[in-house]
């Protein structure tokens, strides 16, 4: 039953689809680059950022990578440009641009 779901697409014949459309892989949303849907883009100002990290948990798509207690620039492969991070930032370190 376990098949390589990366070989299945919207043109696959019914026989090739999985039972109940089960997806036999984890983290498949990573492969789907939703960043291309973005019409408004956040710009990160490292000078103004105090590394308070209020922005990271509010991002609905997990596009603010944090390592060693510090955030890095956005993951633009998946950021849809919703602007929630801009509202959450107390220091004006994030600005939405067209």
């Amino acid at each position, binding site marked *: 039953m376990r098949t390589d779901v990366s070989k299945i697409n919207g043109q696959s014949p019914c026989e090739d689809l999985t039972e109940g459309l*089960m997806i036999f892989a984890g983290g498949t949303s990573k492969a789907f680059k939703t960043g291309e849907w973005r019409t408004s883009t956040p710009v990160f100002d490292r000078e103004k950022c105090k590394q308070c990290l209020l922005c990271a948990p509010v991002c609905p798509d997990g596009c603010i990578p944090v390592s060693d207690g510090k955030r890095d620039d956005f993951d633009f492969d998946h950021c849809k440009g919703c602007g929630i991070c801009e509202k959450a930032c107390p220091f004006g370190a994030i600005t939405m641009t067209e």
Partner: protein
Amino acid sequence: MSRKDRMSGNEAVAYAIRQVNPDVMPAFPITPSTEIPQMVSTYIANGEMDTEFIPVESEHSSMSATVGAEAAGARSMTATSSCGLAFMWEELLVAASNRLPLVLALVNRTLSGPININCDHSDSMGARDTGWIQIYAENNQEAYDNFIQAFPIAEDPRVHLPVMVCQDGFITSHAVENILLEEDADVREFVGEYHPEEFLLNPGKPVAVGPYAVSDYSMEAKFNQEQAMIRSKEVILEIAEKFRSRFNRGFGLFEEYRTEDADYILLIMGSAAGTSKQAADELREAGIKAGVLKLRVFRPFPAEEIANALKGCKAVAIMDRCESYNGHGGPLASEVMAALYTSKVYIPAISYIYGLAGRDFTVETAKDIYKELSDVADKGKQIKQHTYVGLRTREER
């Protein structure tokens, strides 16, 4: 070795559940199936089984939890009736489309309104297009036997569909009758252990169940689900044969009672089939060739097989314990007539509605229907379709 006992239909199903000892049973009580989770809880409390029983706050939740547990990899089941089944509607479809082999013990009861607790098939018939296999029982024995066969059918890799095991509320669920019970070890060996190939709680083998599908995939997925339903027919027959060779009883898709040379056949499901057999026997003694086709499996619908079984008779009465509110006939009659037509079996077939909300169905009533069939077949009486059996009307008075 079979053991003679006596118990009600609910007791019989609870006894089978204890023997099968599924992993998880979420349930919410509703008349007339309440006794089933009650008895299972007692078995668990007494240490006679170790099923994880989850008391939930509604049937929407009981089916959701059953779906979740089954997806997680646990052999899961629940029980309900009537409005409880209606409240599960959304999850019934989820269970089937996610191809989860769970089991539901349904004790048939009418749906509102008028509000009423007694038996008819409007609950399960309403769920006939949710993608579930449906198996009906004539008595406590068949309720027991069908339950034991349910998991092996559902879990077969050719099927992977949920199974609804139906019995008539109160008429069999609350009637104490003789029954043959099998040994725990024999039942467990027959049902086997559950080792799903894919399940959620399976470290290193991640799987997502029930994803959103765009139109590119949905139609193909539904077609595949229907293929599984078609394949289930051969599996149901195989399991029935295995059961018969092991325990010496049981039927396949339907039981043919004295139909071989019958002129008049009553096609019926559930407890009224036994009553009809009694009527057929009494009429046979008077030289009238009456027979009964008792449908055991309604989903998948054995269209060709039914048409083939009916082709030699002069007339058939198709008995629905359910109204379809379509101005045309009961759901069973609609499907049987379509089956007859597509198989080019052009015999008089009459749709009858009987036994709604617990209205009694007697031997005399069955005999009256046979009489009407003979009037139709032999005297050319005009067929009145969609006839209500035993309905009070001003005309009848």
